[in-house]
């Protein structure tokens, strides 16, 4: 087996299965942020990076289906919103225990993914994008019509999720670490899936679905399973988002949110998983910095995004890789 693996490393192309040290470094930095935050505006920094990690989870799920499965969903925010609404609605009825609300959030998003996926998977490429967008908007308008739960105004969550009556997420720092743990587990899970038997079929279905069918794979079912996994993880992000913001609103499911998730994936580097973390951090931090300077921050962010997509195929990760290669060749910058 060692021989097999050694042979793999001689393949000349940058293989997607060699993430290297970068993911470990990313998680190390994220683990150290609470300590570093004590030196600055602590609660602001903790809140900001909690948000970054929550969106990183959602973006990672999107990267899994789009980067590895070729299923570019424009309705991914719906899963996040559904997860968040489960927390809000259960909370409104006095159920705050996460042993109930967390599985419920995952399940609700997974069911939504299964039902919509059954329809969406019948279409391809642009049609797939449009139909996922349509389902996303459907979820958005349904949430807005939930009059008992705040309608368009949303719903305040009075108490963060508890664990066996213990309010363990009440502390911002604990919440931060809990979100970090979820992000880490999601990353490990997706990385394992991508290389597993299932993942190989899922990736193959993106490369050449006809060929996969003639090999004997029911492409539709495999893609739907992948879609359900991504939906459930989107629900996890929603569960965490509701707890982080102590608020849920239909805006969580708007198509702009879905678009932001796609931007995060592209910005970080599609088809890499940890790129989604970099993308979410890049997007939210730039938003935070630029919006402090000017209200029209998107005027600056837009062109920046265009530059990254044009000149750094593979997003920020691709850019970092290209620079590393230059340094490794020892060539001074031309």
């Amino acid at each position: 087996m060692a021989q097999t693996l050694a042979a793999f490393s001689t393949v000349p192309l940058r293989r997607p299965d060699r993430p290297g040290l970068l993911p470990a470094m990313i998680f190390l930095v994220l683990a150290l942020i609470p300590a570093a935050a004590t030196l600055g505006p602590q609660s602001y920094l903790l809140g900001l990076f909690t948000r970054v990690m929550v969106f990183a989870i959602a973006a990672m799920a999107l990267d899994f289906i789009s980067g590895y499965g070729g299923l570019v969903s424009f309705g991914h925010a719906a899963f996040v919103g559904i997860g968040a609404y489960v927390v809000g609605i259960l909370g409104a009825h006095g159920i705050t225990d996460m042993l109930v609300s967390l599985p419920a959030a995952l399940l609700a998003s997974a069911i939504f993914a299964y039902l919509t996926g059954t329809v969406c998977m019948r279409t391809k490429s642009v049609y797939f994008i449009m139909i996922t967008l349509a389902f996303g908007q459907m979820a958005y308008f349904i949430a807005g019509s939930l009059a008992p739960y705040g309608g368009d105004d949303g719903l305040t969550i009075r108490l963060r999720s508890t664990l066996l009556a213990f309010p363990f997420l009440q502390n911002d720092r604990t919440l931060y670490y809990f979100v970090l743990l979820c992000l880490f587990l999601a990353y490990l899970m997706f990385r394992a899936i991508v290389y597993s038997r299932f993942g190989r079929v899922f990736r193959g279905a993106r490369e050449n679905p006809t060929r996969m069918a003639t090999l004997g794979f029911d492409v539709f079912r495999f893609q739907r399973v992948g879609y359900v996994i991504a939906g459930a993880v989107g629900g996890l992000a929603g569960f965490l988002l509701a707890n982080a913001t102590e608020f849920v609103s239909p805006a969580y499911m708007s198509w702009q949110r879905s678009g932001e998730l796609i931007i995060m994936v592209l910005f970080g580097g599609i088809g890499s998983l940890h790129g989604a973390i970099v993308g979410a951090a890049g997007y939210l931090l730039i938003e935070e910095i630029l919006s402090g300077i000017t209200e029209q921050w998107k005027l600056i962010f837009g062109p920046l995004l265009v530059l990254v997509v044009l000149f750094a195929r593979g997003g920020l990760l691709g850019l970092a890789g290209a620079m590393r290669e230059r340094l490794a060749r020892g060539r001074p910058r031309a």
Partner: protein
Amino acid sequence: MVDPVLEISDLRKNFGGLVVTDGVTLDIGRGELHAVIGPNGAGKTTLINQISGLITPAAGTIRFNGADITGLPANKRAELGLARSFQITSVLPRFSALENVALAVQARIGTSYRFFARADCEQPFNEAAIAALAEVGLAGREHTLAEHLSHGEKRALELAMALAMQPKLLLLDEPMAGTGHEESARLIDVLRQLKGRFSMLLVEHDMNAVFALADRISVLTHGRILASGAPHAVRTDPKVVAAYLGEEME
């Protein structure tokens, strides 16, 4: 034919007003290599697409090992042991040659609903895949990405993927298409090795290959079987000479 692997009867298919399969009836015996030849546009690929399940026929039946498979989707037919290659190379470009074939093995043995252990380290898959690659002359190319293989190597890879399925019937859609003289000679050798071990339906333009390999030849023109029989009989059939071989041999 006693107990054929494949029986097609009165198969019909049209794309709008264009009739592409016009009452085709043919069968393939166990271990037989049945070649289908015919000019471009005769409906050879459409026929293979209907047998492999990528296109639904308008009428007629397809029986495979005695069971009616006319309504089955492609993946179910593959599960039953029907493998095919494509005229226009159809592999997974960003998978290594080994992984392309290992996937075919994975489809045949073991569930694919495993989510955690690494698939590329599974020895049973890899060993079977390496054997299939060696059989088509791709030993040593296991870890090359399919998109980096030469055209002839891609043709061989297609064949290896089909072989790894250990099929009961191999549908080969112009396996020599676009290959150079040397490569096609090598592929003919490979096919000669496979002859007898697998039942095969071979669609091919290379007449050297067809007459060297086929047990039986059917000539397809305008979606119809013009003639069918042993190679020497077909070769001298005046209808065939007029319709097809004549112009080819000029």
